[in-house]
């Protein structure tokens, strides 16, 4: 999984513009990174109920402790944020045969009510087979506003 382009989604956009206008904004201490097999729709998708999540046995969303999970936001325009460490899913113990095309940052370990933060297009789609893990390198997930 190589470099990816991040699309900030509506739930997180609202928080970003709230903070940019000087208003208090809720923060998270833990977020989760999942994998999707179909593209999210920016502007309309709010929760995981709208998404097609990868579904092999062994797969689970990976937790990110917000305080340590990210590289420092760059001092540039646009500012960029990226993951500080590698992220690894699996190992899987089944082969659904579906292809992972997107990463998705959300706020719950499972379920469809998780709010969506950022969607990351993977430049190299992956079709894991049973026994595989899927690993993204540090700094692979980048996003800007």
């Amino acid at each position, binding site marked *: *999984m190589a470099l990816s382009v991040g699309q900030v989604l509506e739930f997180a956009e609202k928080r970003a513009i709230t903070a940019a206008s000087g208003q208090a904004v809720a923060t998270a201490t833990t977020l989760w990174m999942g994998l999707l097999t179909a593209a999210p729709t920016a502007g309309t998708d709010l929760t995981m109920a709208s998404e097609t999540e990868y579904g092999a046995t062994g797969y*689970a969303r990976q937790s990110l402790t917000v305080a340590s999970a990210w590289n420092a936001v760059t001092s540039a325009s646009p500012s960029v944020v990226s993951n500080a460490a590698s992220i*690894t899913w699996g190992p899987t113990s089944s*082969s659904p045969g579906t292809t992972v095309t997107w990463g998705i940052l959300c706020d719950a*370990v499972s379920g*469809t009510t998780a709010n969506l933060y950022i969607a990351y297009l993977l430049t190299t789609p992956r079709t894991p*087979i049973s*026994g595989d*893990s899927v690993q993204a390198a540090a700094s692979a997930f980048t996003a800007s506003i």
Partner: protein
Amino acid sequence: MTKYTYDHPEQSGFGQHHAEGDLKERPAQPPEVAQSMRGVLSMIDPTEEQEAKLEAFLGRSMHDLDMHHGTVVDHVGTDDAGQELVTWTDQHGDVRTTAVSKAQFSQHFKPVTEPDSIVGDTVEKKEAWS
């Protein structure tokens, strides 16, 4: 959280147990990713340390990323599909969460017990950590 040990009678990893073929022969990253990452690094005039770090990352196999026999995990709950969620640290130091079916969990995950400890002349068997 309760600690368990992944335990396989043939000492196969969790992934290897279900794998098609030998995980040691499957690179963790496909060739196009390796090529892309080397290309990106070459643009910044990398140090030897940076190059070595990248090659170590790209040299990992699926076996390296597997949950190996004897791995200690924390059972952290169940997901919405009813699978057991365990967290563990892989050999590269990454904290992982893996979803395990109830059948796999009951068959291959054994509660961790503290080692027997001697108190005076009495050997005490500790219950599973909680």
